């Protein structure tokens, strides 16, 4: 996970709201990796994740005047990314197993086969989660958001976040059982 300094983010957001390009640039360099990985975990395609990342930042910049500085700006950015990901998967039905080519696991890496298998299974397990469930899990596990923030990003209730998270953990636990013992 990429460590992000929230105070810095807030400072940059103030600049962005005032159309400060330098602030936007710094913000882009700071947040682009997280957003890219968030989207990647939805689309499992590098090129698509890249495009959606660009779209996210463009939408963010074009709507900068509407930025609410009390809301975590990070959450706002994720909100845009999340909506794009949802729309994308509506436009194009999800392919269940992602392209082997997109699967960047280094097949020649034979140092630890069990490890490689685990990664493989893990990615499949997360991919198998229903969309909402996966979003909750990824936001909590990889992007470090609290349940209340996740509720904000996804525009669902706190209770739904809790339920989805329990569901995600239960499914993952079941699917990855052999690796967890």
């Amino acid at each position, binding site marked *: 996970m990429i460590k992000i300094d929230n105070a810095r983010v807030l400072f940059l957001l103030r600049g962005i709201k005032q159309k400060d390009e330098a602030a936007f640039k710094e913000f*882009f360099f700071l947040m*682009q990796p997280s957003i890219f*990985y968030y989207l990647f975990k939805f689309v499992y395609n590098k090129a698509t994740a890249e495009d959606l*990342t*660009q779209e996210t930042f463009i939408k963010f910049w074009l709507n900068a005047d509407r930025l609410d500085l009390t809301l975590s700006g990070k959450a706002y950015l994720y909100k845009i990314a999340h909506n794009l990901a949802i729309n994308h998967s509506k436009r194009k039905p999800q392919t269940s197993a992602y392209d082997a080519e997109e699967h*960047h696991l280094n097949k020649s890496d034979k140092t630890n086969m069990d490890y490689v298998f685990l990664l493989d299974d*893990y990615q499949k397990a997360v991919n198998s989660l229903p969309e909402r469930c996966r979003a909750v899990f990824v936001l909590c596990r990889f992007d470090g958001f609290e349940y209340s923030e996740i509720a904000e990003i996804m525009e669902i209730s706190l209770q739904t976040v*809790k339920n989805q*998270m329990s569901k995600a953990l239960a499914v993952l636990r079941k699917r990855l059982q052999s690796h967890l013992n």
Partner: protein
Amino acid sequence: MKLMPQIIDSQFLIKIIKSEANQEEKQLFENWLNESDENKEEFGTLVLLWKKVADSKLPPIPDQDIQWAKLQNQLAKLNSVEPEEAKYPPLKVVVPETELISKKKIGEKKDYGWILKVAAVFVILFSIPLLIYINKNSKSAHRVKQIISSQTESLYSLVAGKGERKTILLSDGSLVYLNVDSKLIYPARFTDSSRVVELIGEAYFSISHDASKPFKVICSNTITVVKGTEFNIKNRNDLVRILLTKGIVETFEKDSNKGITLKKGEMVTFDEKIGFSKPAKANIKHFLAWRKGKFSFSHTPLEDVMEEISRFYNVQVVFRNPAERSKNITGVFDTDSLEHIFSIISLTLDVKIDLNGSKVIVQ
């Protein structure tokens, strides 16, 4: 004192794993954990799951400089196509700060957006790459300025000082990555017939394909002509090295018509006194290590190693014992820790390296 019974659920346990729990919650957790083996198992599984999923390998992050340049292009495009929808003016094309050398009229802004659109298409469809390097304070600068300024456009220079690297997207969509302590002189816009820039130092070029407008890089006493390719040019200490990673380029000594053609993966060295070497296959990984933020040395004398380091970290190096200068280093180093590099070098060569502020003393 407990005010309210805390429910032990996944949210609570995750808080514990993330070490975000307070003292009271930790105590509560301890008690819960000791209640039963089932609880221990449940928590153990959760911790394992939490840890293991993070080990998942992900693709590398897309190159941020390129993504940023593309983003700017897209914003510029939005602005020119649907002006009523774009709330803000497009970001400037030039990524880093630039210094205007000569003031002449820049083209109309309207044209600008159109060029960007075309440029964006070229970058995506036809980009090809190349690396060039040179060092000396350019005697040729004046001459080159004349050549470039005959294009009747403003000339800009982009300077990457010691310790900084910069990327620029030129008006034709070509990308140039400037290594530390280097300078690129370029016009605001290229003319109809050719694209000419001058380099002092080292840069990697990814040139947009345009057969009707050859791209020329002037570097010390060489001119490299490209139609669309990727290459690296490096000029340090009177040597110019041109390494081609894609496509074909032709390189000339100035005032000469006899060119040398480079093919993919080949490098040629130009020495002021001797002229061009024969092109030969080069180790691309080694010569382009700087693009990945690394130093790569291969039987490199410590003196040259220190020169690279002083450029990158902006430090001054003093050799107490001249004999140390010629000791050789081979290896690839990450650039994130100077101390680490020094500790490896001093162990390998059995020399003492002291870092004191921006002063480095080798003895």
